[in-house]
């Protein structure tokens, strides 16, 4: 979607944490990215490398934890897996789904020195 600005957001969070917690280098970054967030993990990895060049996270390993998409099907009255935001219910084939999970874009954890 707009992975470059998201990668910059990640770097900002890392730099804020570095200031608050006093670390100088980041060796691994764990992100949680929902399947329905519109974020392409490959584009994210590419942009992360570009954005962190010359920063405290240069060369850091990026681990993307993919969180599954889930939705509430109004017709089935249950939680079902979703692959796209406008997906069909895998049980009844209907489209009346409310996304309940999988839109996350979070920095979960860092390994720092």
């Amino acid at each position: 979607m707009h992975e470059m600005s998201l990668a910059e957001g990640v770097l900002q969070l890392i730099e804020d944490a570095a200031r608050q917690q006093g670390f100088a280098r980041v060796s691994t970054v764990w992100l949680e990215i929902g399947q329905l967030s519109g974020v392409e993990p490959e584009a994210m990895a590419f942009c992360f490398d570009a954005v962190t060049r010359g920063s405290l996270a240069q060369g850091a390993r990026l681990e993307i934890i993919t969180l599954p998409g889930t939705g509430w099907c109004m017709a089935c009255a249950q939680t079902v897996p979703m692959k796209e935001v406008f997906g069909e219910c895998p049980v009844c084939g209907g489209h009346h789904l409310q996304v309940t999970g999988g839109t996350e874009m979070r920095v979960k954890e860092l390994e720092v020195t």
Partner: protein
Amino acid sequence: MCTTCGCGTDEVKIEGGHAGHGHGHEHVHADGTRHSHEHLHGHGHENGHGHPHDPADGHTHAADEDPTHSHAPGVSSARRVQIEQDILAKNNAYAHENRQLLAGQGIFALNLVSGPGSGKTTLLCKTITMLAGVPVAVIEGDQQTSQDAERIRATGAPAVQINTGKGCHLDAHMVGHAMRRLALKDDSLLMIENVGNLVCPAAFDLGEAHKVVILSVTEGEDKPIKYPDMFRAASVLLLNKIDLLPHLDFDVDAALAYARRVNPQIRVIQLSAARGEGMGEWLQFLRDGMASAAAARLATVDGLKKRIAQLEAQLAGTPAQG
């Protein structure tokens, strides 16, 4: 900066002032060198100057010098730090600030999003003219030029142009500055016209009550499923230019079915800003929204007044009145 499109916020300009203070920016020189700057001029958002220790910034630590100053000799200083923060946390914090400011003044704010050429500015001009007497202010977002803000000002409404330069969306920080520049009236309507782009603005909360997506019938009816994030983020869909339907193959039912597939709750208003058809329903939506925002402000004010009266009664040593 945003993008798959390789755009940056370096060149953000807000009419009538400078926009580039209070936040960091980064630029890349022709030779590939990348610089990061923090410009924190202390207008209440954050404090402290960051200084990442980085080999590229010209100084290095001696091999025996532990840059993290670990207090446990012999123990590796590598450690895990829990962050658990949303990547858009900064933008969302600014959006929250904008939303509080708007709520405090009872202002109904909308974020108008669409692809280029859907008729956003014409719709705005027409809306302002038809709402004669209602206080409306406009924030215009475009990459370049202040032509749109000038078109709005010609209707008599105050407008501020934000030029995003290479940036392809407005963010909550820019909008907060523009809001302050507009000197917004209590119980008024604020319309924010985002940069013409059906992708990036979807992710950026500006503090608005609703995102309103505008789709014109001269576009493809499958846009809702081609750009699902935007149609999912919006709560209202305006189908514009319906006066042209007799001349086009546009399938209204198909377009609305696609939109509801992405967002079952989306409210649809069909209209023609140029000819006036359907504008009544849109204006009613705006009036209802303004009335709710104003009522919420009064409820808050009344609630606070009651609370103050209770506390004063307590201080005076008499039992509080419910």
